[in-house]
């Protein structure tokens, strides 16, 4: 089992990094030929960057759109963020002080994450419009995250696993030294699903995380009269005409 998970995590990590890297490179490379910020928009590039920051940190547009959805999304994402921070202790040694302080709150993060996911799942089924636009992959993604959260909480609340050995396993992976993973079925499920999440990330809607930074309606400044904006292919077109 140790060997299986070692290979799985190396593969999942490689695919996650390369896959997302390629997507980000594609987004960065593809030109935006026209100025299309959704107005009113900030007048300066710094203002536009701040607008993207507000979308990422506060879900500003979603707040305008739908308050219950904003709450569910916030609860889930903040919960997830806390859980991720709490899990950093498995990958660094010694553990940084702020992460140590945050450990007790990680549990609440896990609860919040599960509650948010459950609300998002119910909403997807119950609201007619949302059910209409939901495909199998939308439900599967929520189910995957729920299962990851639930298996993780079980190891905390119901059947503890040997987290010292788990930490040793991951620290070992990072220096290409394969150390034994505890033979715990819940842990196995938890880790397998996390690897699965890493594998599907670059091929799924999870790309919204890096993608939001590249959205022209949000990251462009409103300055078309002051600064001429010209994409390389449009410049080429212009040269051919002249």
């Amino acid at each position, binding site marked *: 089992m140790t060997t299986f998970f070692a290979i799985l995590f190396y593969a999942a990590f490689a695919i996650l990094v390369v896959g997302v890297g390629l*997507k980000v490179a*594609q*987004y960065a490379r*593809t*030109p*935006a*030929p*026209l*100025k*299309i910020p*959704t*107005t*009113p*928009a*900030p*007048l300066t590039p710094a203002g536009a960057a701040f607008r993207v920051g507000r*979308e990422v940190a506060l*879900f500003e*547009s*979603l707040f*305008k*759109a*739908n308050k219950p*959805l904003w709450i569910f*999304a916030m609860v889930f994402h903040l919960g997830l963020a806390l859980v991720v921070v709490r899990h950093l202790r498995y990958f660094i040694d010694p553990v940084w002080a702020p992460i140590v302080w945050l450990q007790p709150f990680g549990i609440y993060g896990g609860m919040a994450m599960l509650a948010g996911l459950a609300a998002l799942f119910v909403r997807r089924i119950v*609201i*007619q*419009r*949302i059910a*209409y*636009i*939901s*495909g*199998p*992959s*939308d439900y599967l993604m929520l189910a995957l995250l729920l299962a990851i959260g639930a298996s993780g909480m079980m190891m905390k609340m119901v059947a503890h696993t040997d987290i010292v050995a788990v930490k040793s396993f991951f620290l070992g992976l990072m220096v290409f030294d394969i150390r034994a993973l505890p033979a715990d079925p819940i842990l196995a499920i938890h880790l397998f699903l996390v690897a699965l999440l890493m594998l599907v990330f670059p*091929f*799924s*809607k999870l*790309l*919204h995380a890096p*993608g*939001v930074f*590249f*959205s*022209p*309606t*949000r990251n462009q400044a*409103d300055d*078309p*009269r002051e*600064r*001429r*904006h*010209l*994409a390389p*292919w*449009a410049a080429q*077109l212009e040269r051919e005409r002249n």
Partner: protein
Amino acid sequence: MAADTKIPAMGDPAERAIPCLQPDAMAQSKPYVAAPAHNEPLGFPGELVPDWQEKGIARMGELLGKYKSLQVYMDICVKCGACTDKCHYFLGTGDPKNMPVARQDLFRSVYRRYFTPVGKALGAVGMGKLVGAREFTKEVLDEWFNYFHQCSQCRRCSVFCPYGIDTAEVSMAARDIMDNIGLGHKYANEIIGKVHKIGNNLGLPGPALIDNLEGLEEDLKDETGQDIRMPVDQEGAEILLVTPSADFFAEPHVLGLMGYAKVFHAAGTSWTLSTKATEAANFAMFIGNYEQMQKIAMRIREAALELGVKRIIFGECGHAWRVAYSFLNTLIGPMDFLDPRYPKPQHILEFTYDLIKRGGIKLDKSGNDGMVLTFHDSCNVARASRMGDFAGGQFVIPREVIKACVPKFVDMHADTIGEKTFCCGGGGGLLTDELMDVRIKGSAPRMEALNDVVKREGVTHMAAICAICKAQFTKVLPTYGFDREMIVSVHQLVSNAIVLGNND
């Protein structure tokens, strides 16, 4: 078709009910297909080419490489549904394919099948449905033609999307692909052809325009007793006015044009129209085609250079102002032959507003006695452009001008104005009679908000700054029990209020 249209009920805009889904309610709504005579002058195939599927997919690949918006928006939608109750066509019809995300998915499903690893793999073994991938079949293409012509590219959905996904970008790409495989939209392509051939959307030739303007000068003389000119092709004039051709004779548009003439007259600024650039509108934006859009815009640069003007000012037109404000510098810039002290280009409302602030023109509200005004923010001005030197000037400046001209001004419900404004229902190339049913239904959210201020505040008129809005409201207002003359140009109000120096 329009005769059978069931008018959506008008309630309180604060409590607007989201309609229950009525699948396929608008499945039959589609515009006329362009004939070879409409497509070929634009360089598009005359009719649907035999290998359209292959060609269409290839064109999609090309656009994905050229437009960051399209590539990113295809990937990052999480189907959260924030947009599902924001489109006026969905609110008016209940057809689920008019929910922005569902409209995008008509396109995204084809993208997933041919441009994503998982979609390609699962699609090849007939399991594409798992990840929302679909073959690009004739049924899908027909769906595209119907539903991408039920989007007015108003960008209301993009305001509410947590990633700023703009369905307009997707519908423009879809229309560009359809044009490139010979499945054009007759109304748009016929008009673009007229602009190339004659110079404006209405196909009004130069001599007819001059004749028409002379008539307007006479009307102005009768009304004011003064010689208010409407100069054409006047070399050396300070300002080139580019305005939608509807301003030359459609009502209430022409009353706005007379208002511009009075403002220029009162300000003592020399100005001219051009027989070359007789059209501010640029319907190539609606079909998402950069080359066509640039070709149409280029007439403005040529006219400005030929006439040696120092400034370019645009008349009241929504998408024209988007192209002018947001795209003109890109398409035909740099415009360093113009006076750098003024924005390039400028909106007529920016010009009039400056004059009002500086006391350069006098206004007398009694010219609009008895009128209670509200203002319809045109979608392209509101969400795709700006006026003035501060964010949101496009909301403030028109209102300030109106308030300076009328005794009473009232805004409609906050969720229906400003950046949340509703499209008139006729934008994006939908202003054609065969789409009257969807146009009437799509105007329902605006009509509801208008009805509310008519009942509560005694509003008598609604002003707009877009040729399409004005034409659309003139048609749909009577269906909702209002007077067609309720819709007015902002510069029509200026025209009524302006005090011209007397010749005593």
